[in-house]
């Protein structure tokens, strides 16, 4: 999992978001007829009034105050849109990273980061362009008497001003741009709030779609996962086996759509003391299949007995349905319960050992029959 590119991209985008926020908020204050120092003072008085930790509330209050002060002007909302747009790339990157992790398309992590960087640059430039327009438009305003710097009111006065009964009727409008009609002002507030809600809905939907995406992409990516398995067991190779019996079984399993592994080393480790000339292992979707080619028949008999006993111990309490059969040089043992199916077949010095979930039972019986065992299938 590529953690490094993600962390670096997130850090860079986060730093850039803060930077553009700082730079563009200056123009946002301008559009509301404020200088940065006024906004800072307003926030400071909020801190004194309320509790320090309610930072979010203070910024919400600042926002509502700026809205009223700008007279719900169009320019104020446009500028605020640019300010939020510069924060959009980092949010999109978060969502994109989740999608990448779900689909395992890790190779696009850097590309996504770069795309978000470009997006940030475009939004910031557009924001600056509009900011310069606001600066030009409000140049006279801040020199005129219309500009009223923020002076904290006394507590009694402020309570009256901050909690008006009808927020749209009593607007302490002091902005440089033309104030909007109450109906238009309401629509602008509504649109902003609704857009935020829709963004939340979109993010939730993306996270709902993620499992579907991962289920669509994972089967194709499970193949490399299987092939990476040999790295854990150096002796296991996804190539055809050596002995003719193992080769035949390998081809057979491959034909059935499995990904058999030549795992002599791993299986030798599993059965210490047993001399294996070949071994095939399949572990897929709950199915565990081992095909062991031994050199001594006595060892094969003992091992088959041991495996049979081991299988029975697993399900003894569940009253398994046991089938035992012997034919030309082979012995077969199967056990069927409501949850799973187990098989041990010893054919001369070869052992087939299978343990699979119940839904594979029918297929497994057919497979055994096809191999020449389990005559009463």
């Amino acid at each position, binding site marked *: 999992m590529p953690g490094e590119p993600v962390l670096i991209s997130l850090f860079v985008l986060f730093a850039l978001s803060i930077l553009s926020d700082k730079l563009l908020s200056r123009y946002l204050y301008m559009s509301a007829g404020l200088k940065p120092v006024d906004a800072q003072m307003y926030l400071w008085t909020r801190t004194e009034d309320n509790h320090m930790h309610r930072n979010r509330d203070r910024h919400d209050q600042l926002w509502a105050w700026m809205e009223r002060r700008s007279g719900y002007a169009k320019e104020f909302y446009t500028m605020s849109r640019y300010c939020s747009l510069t924060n959009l790339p980092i949010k999109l990157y978060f969502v994109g990273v989740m999608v990448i992790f779900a689909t395992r398309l890790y190779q696009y992590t850097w590309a996504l980061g770069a795309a978000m960087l470009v997006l940030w640059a475009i939004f910031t430039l557009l924001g600056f362009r509009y900011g310069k327009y606001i600066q030009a438009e409000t140049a006279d305003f801040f020199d005129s008497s219309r500009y009223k710097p923020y002076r904290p009111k006394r507590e009694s006065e402020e309570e009256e001003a901050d909690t008006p009964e009808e927020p749209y009727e009593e607007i302490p409008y002091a902005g440089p741009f033309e104030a909007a009609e109450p109906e238009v002002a309401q629509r602008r507030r509504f649109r902003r709030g*609704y857009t935020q809600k829709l963004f939340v809905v979109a993010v939730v939907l993306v996270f709902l779609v993620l499992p579907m995406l991962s289920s669509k992409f994972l089967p194709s990516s499970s193949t490399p996962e299987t092939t990476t398995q040999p790295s854990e067991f150096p002796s296991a190779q996804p190539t055809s086996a050596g002995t003719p019996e193992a080769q035949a079984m390998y081809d057979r399993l491959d034909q059935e759509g499995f990904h058999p592994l030549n795992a002599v080393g791993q299986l030798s480790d599993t059965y210490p003391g047993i001399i294996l000339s070949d071994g095939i292992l399949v572990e897929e979707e709950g199915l565990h299949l081992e095909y062991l080619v031994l050199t001594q028949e006595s060892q094969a008999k003992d091992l088959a007995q041991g495996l049979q006993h081991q299988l029975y111990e697993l399900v003894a309490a569940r009253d398994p349905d046991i089938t035992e059969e012997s034919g030309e040089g082979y012995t077969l043992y199967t056990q069927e319960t409501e949850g799973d199916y187990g098989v041990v077949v010893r054919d001369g010095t070869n052992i087939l050992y299978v343990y699979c979930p119940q839904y594979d039972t029918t297929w497994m019986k057919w497979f055994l029959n096809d191999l020449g065992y389990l005559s009463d299938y």
Partner: protein
Amino acid sequence: MDITLFVINTVICAIFWLLSRLCCVWIGRLSEASAGQTLRDVEAHLSQAPGEKLFPWLMDISPRPRLTALFHYLFRGLTSLPLLGMVFGVTLLFVPAWEVYARYLINTMFVLYMALFVLGLALFDPLHYRWTGKYR
């Protein structure tokens, strides 16, 4: 008699009962909105006629009584689901094996309320404006 399952089920359902009000409040407000009343209108009416039942009044004045009734009963039904779960929990005292059904109900409620919350975010504002002509 093992009361552990019963207690766990009751506590989970109680939490869901609070959660259901939070997630479905928009359905209750749509019932008022479909009668053309905003929250302010309803509060103003209730302050003028304290103690009066809200639903009959809404039905009287509603230009879309069917929708008003639908949203009202939908809200009632959805917020009663956890209470039903609590009642069902009593059976767990006698038949512990029915825990699977209780768990199924809890899982269903969780998915349902989360989905309703998200649906409310997307649906409430436009419908409210359509029926009341006001943004809030």
